[in-house]
C-alpha cells in the first residue's frame, strides 16, 4: 500500500467535518446536535495535528486550545439544555422557538 501522507489525514478530517455538519443540520435532538459539534471540532483538531507533522509543534498546541474550547462549550451548552428542558419539557430544536414571531 502507498505511504500515508498528510492528504490522507485531511480527507479523514473532511469526512468527519461533513458528517458533523450533516448531523447539526438534520437532527432534532439538541444533545445530538452538540455531539455533532464535537465531531466538527475533532475534525479541525485532526487537521491541526496533521499539519503539525509538517510545520512543527504549533498545531498541537492549538489542538489543545481547541479541546479547552470544546470543554467550555459542552459545559455551557449542556447547562442551557438542562435549563431549557426544565422550562419547556422538550429538547427538540424545532420546538424551541421562543424568539420566533
Amino acid at each position, binding site marked *: *500500500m*502507498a*505511504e*500515508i501522507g*498528510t*492528504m*490522507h*489525514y485531511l*480527507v*479523514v478530517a*473532511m*469526512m*468527519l*467535518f*461533513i*458528517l458533523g*455538519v*450533516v*448531523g447539526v*443540520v*438534520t*437532527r*432534532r*435532538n439538541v*444533545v*445530538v446536535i452538540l*455531539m*455533532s459539534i*464535537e*465531531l466538527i471540532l*475533532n475534525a479541525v*483538531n485532526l487537521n491541526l*495535528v*496533521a499539519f*503539525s*507533522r*509538517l*510545520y512543527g509543534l*504549533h498545531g*498541537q*498546541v492549538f*489542538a*489543545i*486550545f481547541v*479541546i*479547552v474550547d470544546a*470543554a*467550555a462549550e*459542552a459545559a*455551557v451548552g*449542556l*447547562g442551557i*439544555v*438542562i*435549563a431549557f*428542558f*426544565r422550562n419547556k419539557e422538550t429538547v*427538540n*430544536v*424545532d420546538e424551541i422557538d421562543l424568539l420566533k414571531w
Partner: protein
Amino acid sequence: MTPVATPFFFYFLAALSVGSALGVILRKNAVHSAIFLIFTLLAQAGLYLMLYAPFVAGVQIILYAGGIMVLFLFVIMLVNLERSLKEEQFNKQWVVGTMVGVLFGAVILLVYRSGAGSFPKTLAVLQESTNTQDIGVMLYRNYMMPFEVASLLLLVAIVGAVVMAKKRI
C-alpha cells in the same frame, strides 16, 4: 524507530472513526450516539499517536472520552429518554441538508486536489520522547497570553454552567 504497518493502522483507525461518526448522526437513541462518539474519539487519539502527538492523544482520551462524554451521558439521563424515542429524530430538511453536506465535501475535495502540491516535501522534526515537555515550554513561552485567556474562559464556563443549571435563574 520506523513505525510498523502504518497503512493498515491508518485505514483501520480512519474507518473506525468515520464509521462511528456515521453512527453518531444516524442512531435514534441518544445514548447510542454518545457511545459511538466515544469510539470516534478513541480512534482519533490513535490517529494522533500516528502523527507523533502523544500528548494531544492523552489529552483527547482523558478530557474528551473521559470528561466531556460523561457530561453528555449525564445530560442524556437528565432529559427524559422514553418520550423522545418515539418521536421523529430527523427534521424535515434532512434531504436538502444531506445534499448540501455532500456538495460541501465535493468543494473541499476540489480544493485539496488543486492545493495538494503546495505542501512542504520534508516533515518537521518532532521528538516523540520530549513531546510533552516541548508542548509545555511552548505553552508557557510562545502562547502565554492565549493560555491565560483559556483559563479565564474555563472559569467563565464553570460559572455559566452553574448558573444555567440552577433551579431558578
